[in-house]
């Protein structure tokens, strides 16, 4: 700490050297002067702060030490005449936070700077700064050291990596070599095993041969021994039993002929016979071989022809191929060769045979290339249409199924044919007459039944029609009566246009009700066979057309008497009819009905015709 002024100056100089603030150098001199004066302890000295103002920073309060500790940021006026107290207080705060004695103490004459404290603070700060700088330096040194360490480590790392790489490669190389060597060892083992086996086999062979040799040797030795014995025996015995041949009499030769002397002629004869046998044998074999050759040649010819036919259709389809010309050429050549070979085959000479075999080989080569091409095409197609590729098994199943189906159909067709034949085959007259139109029999029966039913129906319709016409006639009579009635009523009305109308009303209503009643009664016979309404109209209209003599004007009757019910063939409602009649809007209905009736008549007749 501040002990001597020299220390102070030295410290401050030291400090300011570090501070490297050119504008402060001058001030440093001033401060230096000041401190030379004082020689007190920190606590008691007082300092003038005017020079300290130079060090104030107004704007930036914490001094940034991070960048270059040696360059001080531009210090703007931290303390001025005005804000001394604030500065003091601020500095007090800062200093107290750092643990240094306060700069200024409150005294009676206002805030007074304790010079010693200030100096001590400065000294402390300087020490602090120095320590910081030292640490910075240490850190820097450390950093440099660590940098260099790192560099070194990096270098060593790369070196080691390279080494590792190299050693790995070496390792793989060695492994590879080891593997190869192992394979070699294995193969050598196998070889060794094989060799051992062979050696064993050879040894066994040798052993068996040796036993065989020994056996033979022993046998020969035994025989030799026997021979020696026999020889000895003979020599000793001396009496040699000669061969004897006792025969009662000679026997004739089996073939009855006399035996011949052995002469040169006989020998020649024997030779001749021997050669004859041999030649006969060769002849027969030659014949067999010729036959076989001829058959094989035929087969080859056939094959060649087949191959040519198989390969020929390709030509027109492949127009752009190079092979085309050559194909044509070769095929024409082939034909030539074919003919020539066929001719020369008769002579069956070497040349012809060679030609034939060459041509066969050529055809076969072409066929092979063709098939290979097809195969490659098929594989390409198979690759392309992989999704649609049918596995072989499914294909086979499909084929079998189809074959089965074909077989079934064939059987079916066969049976059909048989039956047809039976049909067409001439049979007896009886059966023929019986069977005449046998297939139509059923239809005929049905037809007869239908006719019967139709006849019945027709009768019914006739009856109905009769009734109808009678009813119609009745109706017409009634209508006439009604009209007369109406006419009289109208007359009455007209004549009696008097206030006595209500007298007439019940008459009117009566007549009306009579009208409606008769209308209803008229309508009812028409409506009673409700289901036959349509048919009635059918029959009525048609009978009017079909048999005009019977009821000449049934339709006219209806038309005139306005009795033709307003109906479409589908809707028949008696009430509707009555309402139509009641309405009295007759002429219009008549017209409509007429037209409708005409159409309907046409349609009905058309239907009738159509139904039968």
């Amino acid at each position, binding site marked *: 700490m501040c002990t001597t002024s020299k220390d102070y100056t030295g410290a401050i100089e030291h400090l300011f050297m570090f501070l490297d603030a050119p504008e402060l150098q001058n001030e440093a001199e001033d401060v230096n002067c000041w401190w030379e004066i004082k020689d007190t302890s920190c606590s008691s000295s007082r300092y003038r702060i005017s020079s300290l103002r130079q060090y104030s920073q107004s704007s930036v309060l914490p001094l940034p030490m991070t960048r270059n500790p040696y360059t001080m940021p531009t210090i703007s006026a931290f303390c001025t005449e005005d804000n001394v107290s604030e500065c003091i207080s601020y500095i007090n705060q800062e200093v107290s936070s750092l643990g240094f004695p306060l700069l200024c103490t409150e005294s009676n004459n206002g805030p007074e700077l304790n010079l010693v404290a200030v100096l001590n603070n400065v000294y402390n700060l300087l020490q602090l700064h120095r320590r910081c700088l030292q640490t910075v330096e240490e850190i820097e040194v450390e950093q440099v050291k660590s940098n260099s360490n790192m560099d070194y480590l990096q270098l060593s790392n790369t070196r080691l990596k390279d080494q590792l790489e190299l050693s790995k490669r070496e390792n793989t190389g060695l492994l590879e070599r080891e593997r190869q060597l192992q394979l070699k060892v294995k193969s050598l083992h196998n070889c060794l095993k094989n060799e051992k086996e062979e050696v064993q086999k*050879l040894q*066994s*062979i040798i*052993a*068996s*041969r040796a*036993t*065989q*040799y*020994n*056996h*033979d040797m022993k046998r020969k030795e035994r*025989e030799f021994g*026997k*021979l020696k014995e*026999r020889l000895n025996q*003979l020599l000793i*015995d001396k009496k*040699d*039993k*000669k*061969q*004897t*041949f*006792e*025969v*009662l*009499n*000679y*026997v*004739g*030769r*089996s*073939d009855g002929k006399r*035996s*011949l002397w*052995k002469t040169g002629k*006989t*020998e020649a004869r*024997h*030779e001749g*016979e*021997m*050669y004859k*046998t*041999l030649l006969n*044998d060769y002849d027969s*074999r030659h014949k067999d*071989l010729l036959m076989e050759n001829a058959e094989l040649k035929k087969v080859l010819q056939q094959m060649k022809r087949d191959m040519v036919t198989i390969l020929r259709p390709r030509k027109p389809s492949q127009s752009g191929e190079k092979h085309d010309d050559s194909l044509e050429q070769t095929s024409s050549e082939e034909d030539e060769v074919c003919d020539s070979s066929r001719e020369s085959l008769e002579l069956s000479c070497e040349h012809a045979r060679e030609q034939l075999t060459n041509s066969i080989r050529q055809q076969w080569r072409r066929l092979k290339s063709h098939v290979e091409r097809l195969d490659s095409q098929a594989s390409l197609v198979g690759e392309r249409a992989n999704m649609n590729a049918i596995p072989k098994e499914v294909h086979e199943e499909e084929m079998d199924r189809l074959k089965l189906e074909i077989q079934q159909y064939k059987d079916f067709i066969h049976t059909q044919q048989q039956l047809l034949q039976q049909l067409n085959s001439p049979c007896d007259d009886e059966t023929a007459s019986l069977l005449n139109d046998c297939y139509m029999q059923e239809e005929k029966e049905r037809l007869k039944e239908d006719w019967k039913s139709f006849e019945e129906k027709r009768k019914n319709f006739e009856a109905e029609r009769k009734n109808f016409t009678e009813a119609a006639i009745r109706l017409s009579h009634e209508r006439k009566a009604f009209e007369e009635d109406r006419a009289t009523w109208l007359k009455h009305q007209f004549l009696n246009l008097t206030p006595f109308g209500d007298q007439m009303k019940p008459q009117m209503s009566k007549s009306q009700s009579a009208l409606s009643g008769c209308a209803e009664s008229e309508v009812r016979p028409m409506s009673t066979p409700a289901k036959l309404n349509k048919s009635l109209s059918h029959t009525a209209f048609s009978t009017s057309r079909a048999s005009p003599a019977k009821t000449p004007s049934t339709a006219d009757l209806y038309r005139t008497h306005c009795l033709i019910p307003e109906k479409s063939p589908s809707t028949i409602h008696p009430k509707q009819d009555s309402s139509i009649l009641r309405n009295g809007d007759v002429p219009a209905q008549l017209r409509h009905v007429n037209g409708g009736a005409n159409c309907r008549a046409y349609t009905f007749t058309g239907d009738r015709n159509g139904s039968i």
Partner: protein
Amino acid sequence: MNFSEVFKQSNQLCRVSPDGKYLATCVQYRLVVRDVNTLQILHLYTCLDQIVHMEWSSDSLFILCAMYKRGLVQVWSLEQPDWYCKIDEGSIGLVSSRWSPDGRHILNTTEFHLRVTVWSLCTKAVSYIKYPKACQKGIDFSRDGCYMALAERRDCRDYVSVFVCDDWHLLRHFETETQDLAGVEWSPNGCVLAVWDSCLEYKVLLYSLDGRLLSTFSAYEWSLGIKSLAWSPSSQFLAIGSYDGKVRILNHITWKKVTEFDHPASINNTKAVVYKEVERKPVVGSADLFIQQRITMGSTLFNTQSKYEICPLPVQVPVVKPDLDRANPKVGVSSMAFSSDNRYLATKNGGFQVQSVTWHCSGDSLILLGKEQLCLCYMEVGEEEEEEEDDDDVK
């Protein structure tokens, strides 16, 4: 099936005459000739010693009886029972004796195969053939009886001599390229002679009638080679059975292998039908039977009925592993027989106890003869099979 009474015989010498009328059996030193239909004894001949070999002549007029120990051959005539013929080989001994195809010559092979003596019954002439080879099949007559092939060995070399059976004129004599000739066999048409080597070398040589070498066939080296050989009746195929259990078939045009058949222990071929004999023992009745009944039951007990049922594939054929350390081991195809219509080939492989395999002349059925039993196999008519292997286990 009806059975006659049991007759005695010795040495399994029972032969039906080639014309099928007579049956000759040997009982010790007696030769009994019976009528085939009635089994009545027609002739009875007595030989000087126990008969070891008996053979009918080709025209069914004479019967040859050989007694090897005594070196005697006696010939009997059927037409003239008084007629006799005795051939005594003397001190030179007798190892085998056979008729010539014309039925008038007898070929005797002396002891140690010193020579073959041809005795003629017509002329009393004797011919000698030197240096015959002692091998599996040293002599073979062609089917028409014209030629005889004889294997010879001189100066450590093999030769084949072809004789004309008429007058035993030596037609051809040629050396064969074999190490140790084991056998000769004529083809049925008499034009090709098959010559095969001993089992130490697999080699088949084919010579034409006039002695030219037509072809050689060798399937493999070093292992034991050919065990048996058979011509097809049409002379088109030559079947070679070897010690490796396979049959190789050569064709007569190129003499190259056409096909080879194996005898696997497990049969898997879908075309093969395997019949297995299944024994059915009748059910034994309750214990409280009378002894009498038991005795009668006992005889039926032993008449086990056997039935053949078709086994489902794959079938494991029971194989007895033979002792390979012995010479001529019981491995390999030991016997083969073609059916007469060229359709079937029956082969026997391994150590099955089948002594012989013979086809019926119609080619429809097959007889398998075991030591104590025989089995008749009927082929299905109408089947097209190249080979029917019959390895069934005849007990």
